[in-house]
């Protein structure tokens, strides 16, 4: 049953990825094109999900927005997992003052209000950038700031490896530090790293959505799930066009799919 569910979830995710990547094939409109005569239009043949407040085709915006959120969130998750892996691994292996310093920095980062830090960093960025660069910058910031919670998990896993018998055995046989890291430690850390990577993806998607809801995420006219979700603020438009719920449905679907295909405790061994 679990296996079948995972298959369905993977299939759905792949389908959504494909739709997003080949968006041009599925919609004739640009995400920025405004049909000003038809703002807040209900679904029709021309606009399957209707239009937004500026008359832009919601289906095109959903596909292009999916591309932004689904491509960049894994990239940010990869970055944050790599940082967490490097720092958590170093803390767990080296111990002593290095461990204390890294954990102190991680705790400090966890205690700081992430949203305000993001807002401040976003404000410090140069203004004269194209929308695509601003999107990448937003996710880069998310990736650079999102590592502390993963670090704690990686650190704990590395610590248990450091005290393990197989590592002692490897050391006693004269295994060098590089070989120790890449042949003994990293393979044993891999399940934890993967888990952190998968867990981070929906977190970053939702954080970007929150930032966009505040008007600080992906900038106009580029769509993302976050700024599409802002369309739900307009209650009268939502009541006349249920197509406005599409990004919410997509986001929920993708987060559920990620949760299903996430490696379980048994998978991690």
């Amino acid at each position, binding site marked *: 049953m679990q296996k079948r569910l995972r298959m369905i979830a993977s299939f759905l995710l792949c389908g959504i990825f494909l739709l997003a990547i080949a968006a041009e094939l599925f919609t004739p409109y640009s995400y920025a094109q405004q049909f000003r005569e038809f703002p807040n239009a209900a679904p029709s043949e021309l606009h399957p999900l209707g239009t937004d407040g*500026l008359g832009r085709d919601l289906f095109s915006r959903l596909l292009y927005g999916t591309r932004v959120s689904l491509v960049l969130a894994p990239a940010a998750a990869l970055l944050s997992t790599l940082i967490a892996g490097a720092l958590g691994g170093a803390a767990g292996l080296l111990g002593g003052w290095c461990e204390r310093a890294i954990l102190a920095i991680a705790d400090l980062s966890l205690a700081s209000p992430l949203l305000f830090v993001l807002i401040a960093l976003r404000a410090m960025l140069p*203004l004269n*950038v194209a929308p695509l660069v601003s999107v990448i910058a937003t996710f880069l910031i998310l990736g650079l700031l999102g590592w502390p919670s993963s670090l704690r998990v990686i650190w704990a896993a590395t610590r248990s490896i450091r005290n393990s018998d197989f590592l002692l055995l490897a050391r006693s046989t004269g295994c060098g530090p590089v070989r120790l890291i890449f042949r003994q430690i990293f393979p044993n850390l891999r399940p934890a790293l993967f888990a952190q990577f998968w867990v981070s993806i929906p977190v970053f998607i939702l954080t970007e959505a929150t930032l966009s809801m505040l*008007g600080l995420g992906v900038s*106009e006219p580029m769509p993302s799930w976050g700024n599409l979700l802002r369309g739900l603020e307009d209650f009268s438009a939502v009541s006349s066009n249920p197509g406005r719920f599409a990004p919410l449905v997509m986001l929920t679907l993708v987060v559920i799919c990620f949760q299903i295909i996430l490696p379980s405790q048994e998978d991690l061994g």
Partner: protein
Amino acid sequence: MLRTLRHLSVFALFLIAPTAHAQSGGVLHFCLHGEPKTFNPVLVEDEASENIRYLTGGVLIRLNRQTQALEPALATSWHLSKDGRKITLQLRKGLYFSDGTPFTSEDVAYTMKMLMDPQLHSGTGDAFRSAEGTVDVQTPSVDTVAITFPARVAGLEPLFDQVAILSAHSPKKEMAVLGPFYVSEYKAGSYVELKRNPNYWKRDAQGHPLPYLEGLHLDIQRNRDIELLRFRRGELQLINRLDSESYVRLQKEDANVAHNAGAGLDSDHIWFNQVATAPLSEYKKTWFRSAQFRTAISKAINRDDICRVVFAGFAKPAYGPVSPANRFWFNSALPAAKYDPQRALTLLIKAGFRFSDNELRDQFGNRVEFTLVTNSGNAVREKIAAMLQQDLANIGIKMNVVTLDFPSLIERMTRTFDYEACLLGLVNTDLDPNGQMTVWLSSGENHQWNPSQKTPATTWEAEIDTLMREQATALTDKKRKEKFDRVQQIIYEQQPFIYLVNRDVLTAVSPAVVGAAPTVLNPPAFWNVDVLQLRPGTELGAQK
């Protein structure tokens, strides 16, 4: 017989009275959109305190929000000296503050003293500060007061509309008032309760004492959605300001509830950074300083579309610094700047730009591209920005949009000047151009395109400086209007601010309220609160 006749005449009066179906008494419920920071009318700066001041304060001269004309209030008449420095006011006799303290000329003298006290930093008092020196107040009798200023104060009489008279002798200090209501209870963060002032001086045409209402209950509610929900549930009877979406929604439910007073005084506009020291490329500074470039941008913007799409038709295209809602000061001779992208391109080509492959380049081959900043979280401005993006793309200009949190935006606008163009709005509460001195004088802090200049950077800014100073000292309103008309014309020609829209003033008034006549001036829905009444049987929560 006489008694019967009297009864009959009272009955006849009751029948013919226009508001015979309404009742005196009752408590009107509506919201303040923030915590009142003070109840001292001299120290008022925020909107909530200003509303309380309007509801409780008695003023010498009142600006009628409907006719925009001045009317006698606590002063029955006034006389301005020829040099414009001295105003002599004749006060109403036999009036009392809400606590029973008599009202005399001493109270006016005391209020002026408080207003001009440099220790208090009164924003209201600042408007009266025309020059260095003290304000002299003479009280030759209990009902006469003469105020002499060190220099002429232009537009002096309307300024008294903001001055609520304080009692010099009442132990209740600022809580003793001369307005229609007094503050009876205040629960921080929750509500302000106002009760009818039994000593209010005004009476209706039939001689009945005003106000009709027994009191006001003002809930402190920042969330406009909750305010709207409560209004629809019948828990509130009035909304002072509505956005266009809520207006459309209410109008669909009940057309009698939603009121549109027409284009208001507030405007949304964009401007280009013209600060000489701004950290921008020199070629961009050259574009932004070019009047032709700015005019072309203005012509390329489809303001009608913005009004229709963003404001659901509840806004009017704006072309100049004064809204037509400001009946006296608006320069009606200025033509409407029509949407004409072809003309915009012609202007740009004349200015040395080249248009090919749907891209606009300057004479050095630089692609015309700039970033517009605006405040984050403002869905209306974000929509306007997206529309500007498409309009400018039609003439080959690439415009990026960046939204910033407000403190970061202000930092860039006023300190670092690290931005290219900005979209913001101007809230106008004052009809008189003197209220905008800091915007138009080149030395002004709010001269946003190039603030706090030591000497005017351009000849047209120098001319505006001269005209604004001249209008401030001109002896007649006609002369002042001539000068300010010219200022408006220069701004129209130079486009330092590219005006986009004047939003309509939208309000909601429950059918339970009788006598409401929303206007464009603040407070639009309850400016005539002293004559508002509630229909019988419309107690709170009765109507859905």
